[in-house]
């Protein structure tokens, strides 16, 4: 999925806010897609999906056609999303058991999933389930199934960890979630296409490609400016 079109550099603006990032991801999801939004930041994407765009949301606990969060009288103990938050159902919704829910994912029927990440490698490896810290309680949920099963895996993350290290890396050092599965990475500074070969920058926000090249420990496929 490498882009050959020229990179759009938007150096004269601020990096994307979380809402702007979610809106950007939402705008890239084609009409009619079946989509799973991971817990956390990716959930925000649903706020920016046009209700008329015909995008159907999948939740891995067994539903297609998930609607917005429930409030007040809409709250139903039996209707929750993968984060166990009460949600609503849209016309055309359907329910199914857990094995069917993951079979439709693993079977390649889901067009997109949007996940958070600790690290993504230049080869599209994803690490998002375990920091590897010895005292951490390991918990994977559906992350590996989504990473392996969805036809396109989109990652939304900050470009840098809290300690300032880049999260787009030559090789993941955190335990892996999936191999070669990520196709695009959305960060506050840039959108990266993970392709063969290498990582291309689709657009930047508040920096230039050369800034990214200085900041990141990876090769970018764009030629350096003369």
């Amino acid at each position, binding site marked *: 999925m490498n882009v050959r079109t020229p990179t759009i550099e938007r150096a004269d603006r601020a990096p994307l806010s979380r809402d702007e990032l979610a809106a950007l991801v939402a705008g890239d999801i084609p009409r009619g897609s079946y989509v799973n939004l991971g817990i956390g930041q990716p959930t925000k994407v649903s706020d920016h999906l046009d209700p008329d765009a015909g995008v159907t949301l999948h939740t891995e*606990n067994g539903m297609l056609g998930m609607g917005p969060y429930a409030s007040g009288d809409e709250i139903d103990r039996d209707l929750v999303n993968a984060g166990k938050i009460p949600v609503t159902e849209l016309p055309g919704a359907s*329910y199914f*058991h*857990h094995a069917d829910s993951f079979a439709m994912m693993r079977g390649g029927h889901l067009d997109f999933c949007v996940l958070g990440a600790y690290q993504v490698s230049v080869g599209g490896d994803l690490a998002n389930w375990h920091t590897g810290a010895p*005292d951490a*309680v390991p918990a994977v*949920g559906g992350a590996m199934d989504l990473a*392996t099963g969805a036809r396109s895996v989109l990652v939304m993350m900050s470009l840098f960890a809290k300690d300032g290290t880049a999260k787009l890396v030559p090789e993941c050092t955190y335990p*892996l979630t999936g191999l070669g599965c990520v196709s695009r990475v959305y960060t506050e500074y840039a959108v990266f296409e993970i392709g063969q070969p290498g990582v291309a920058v689709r657009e930047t926000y508040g920096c230039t490609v050369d800034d990214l090249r200085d900041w990141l420990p990876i090769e970018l496929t764009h030629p350096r400016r003369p």
Partner: protein
Amino acid sequence: MIDLVDDPDQAVSGIADGATVLVGGFGAAGMPYALLDALLRQGASDLTVVNNNAGNGTTGIAALLAAGRVRKVICSFPRQHDSYVFDELYRAGKVELEVVPQGNLAERIRAAGAGIGGFFTPTGYGTPLAEGKESREIDGRHYVLEYPIKSDVALVAAHRADRSGNLVYRKTARNFGPIMAAAADLTVVQVARVVDTGDLDPEAVVTPGIYVDRVVVAEPALEELPA
């Protein structure tokens, strides 16, 4: 034929120490709280509990954990904002944990009910959760061999049963119910109401009664549910 029993205590009678117990539910949706409360009173220990999570708050699975009845938890996501009972036991080395990717967990339960001896799944290949497991390349893709989760008992909450044991569920409370009901030697179901045989639309039955052994009417006590 099913046993329509009078109370949850009868429903869980005979569950042995050391049993592997599949527990339906995803959060509060479909969680068989009345059966779990009864299992706590019944006293079986050294249990292996299979659920998506490892208990919330102090009720249900967390109560069994707190009482020292659980030797091992098989789940996909133990870490919750209110999984403090499990977290403490795990960090103290007092409970075993097998973390399984959620879809592999579901498929391993499904396989047990479907008589499948094992299956190759792409999920987890190349990750720490596939370490030590047989893998195979099939048609250019890598797969990991996973085995069914054999179990003694399934505790499931459904919406309605008829007197033949046919079950329907409500919304996302269905989650693990149908595959767990099929997978265990003894399937115990709590429902909000039992209707006469013939009163459920056969086209709408999700779990056929062949998978169900005991049914008890137990409306979940909403005030006891975690927020």
